[in-house]
């Protein structure tokens, strides 16, 4: 019985945590009017710079390859992927939903990065 009570408490706490971002998002109608943002990520010396970025929903991320070697931007779950980007090549993707998106270079899979999308 105490076990069930503890579980119910945990559930309630979880519901509160989940509700918080939703409240924050809905309380600011001005946020919806803000023009879509663009964030850039450089691909250089075989690394995504910055490796981890946190952006708001609706942000467009633009990757630019500054290396002499080609690279790709490929979601770990393949939900988005670029063609091979030669030197100076760009790829952009707009993140509409909140989430944690791991990606890598399918040519050099030790190159990994993350885009964390969350409302703030």
């Amino acid at each position, binding site marked *: 019985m105490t076990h069930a009570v503890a579980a119910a408490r945990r559930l309630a706490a979880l519901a509160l945590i989940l509700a918080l971002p939703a409240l924050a998002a809905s309380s600011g109608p001005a946020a919806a009017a803000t023009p879509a943002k663009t964030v850039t990520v450089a691909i250089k*010396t*075989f*690394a995504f710079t910055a490796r981890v970025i946190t952006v708001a929903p609706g942000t467009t991320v633009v990757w630019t390859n500054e*290396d*002499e*070697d*080609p690279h*790709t931007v*490929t979601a*770990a779950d393949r939900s988005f992927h670029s*063609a*091979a980007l*030669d*030197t100076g090549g760009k790829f952009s993707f707009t993140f509409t939903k909140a989430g944690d998106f*791991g*990606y*890598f270079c*399918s*040519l*050099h*899979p*030790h190159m*990994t990065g993350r885009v964390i999308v969350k409302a703030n």
Partner: protein
Amino acid sequence: MTDHADESLSRRGLLTHCAGWAGAGALYTLTGGIASSISLDAALAAPPRRGASKPFTFLQISDTHIGFDKAANPDTRGTAIAAVEKIKALPDKPDIILHTGDITHLSTEEQFDDARQILSGLGAPVFYVPGEHDFLDEGQGRAYLARYGAGTLGTGWHSFDHLGVHFIALNNVANLKAGGMAHLGEEQLAWLKRDLAGLSASTPIVVFAHIPLWTVYEAWGWGTDDSGAALALLRRFGSVTVLNGHIHQILQKVEGNVSFHSARSTAYPQPAPGAAPSPGPLKVPSEQLPMMLGIRTARFVRGNEPIALIDQSLA
């Protein structure tokens, strides 16, 4: 037999004495799992060895990167042609040629066509494995397989025999996973197991693949994460020679009866493992470039004789 034993013993003594890299090339010999090297000059000066039957020569060319035109080598077409000319001028004609991948730089139709034209007329059949640069098209290898996929399985793996030596071509550049290294995959490993099943342990084996099948440098992805499964299948054979490209430099390693050798590129050098912030193309003064590019010949003599590898630069 005693002749062979004496010969290899005395040669081993010599090899131990002279081990190390020297001059424009190096000769590798593999006897009883011990690989050593002597200078190319010494190797060429050595008297011809007796063999039970006619020996043959095969050749390895790698990482032509047709289409690359950056500072590290603005003329990869020219250096590939220089390599072809070098091969054509060899006094000992190779029976077969192995291309260990990165034929092109960006997998475009033009680059594949150009590479085919440059590599035609070598005077021997060329067997290919793809590098990751050959699997860059939207079809993830469709362009490569349209040209080189005939008679192969899966993403291009295959095997063939030549004068008693079993050659195995593996693809470790397809369907790579985030955070990992090169990858062979379950389907290819299952095929390899079937391919080797009927062979006696005395069959000499030559495996060729693009990315090293041993971990050269994990931080740069220079290895194959499931190569252990392949090596487990190869361990029962008395002589296994594994040839690769990808890292654009000569490196070797021996593990029991298996010896691993990575070859030079004909396009541009890359830094030694960990010697630079990234594995990108290494820019050297243009007069030094030909010394860092090259081809490799391999000489097989039937019996207990080792396969001897001779690396020659384009200088």
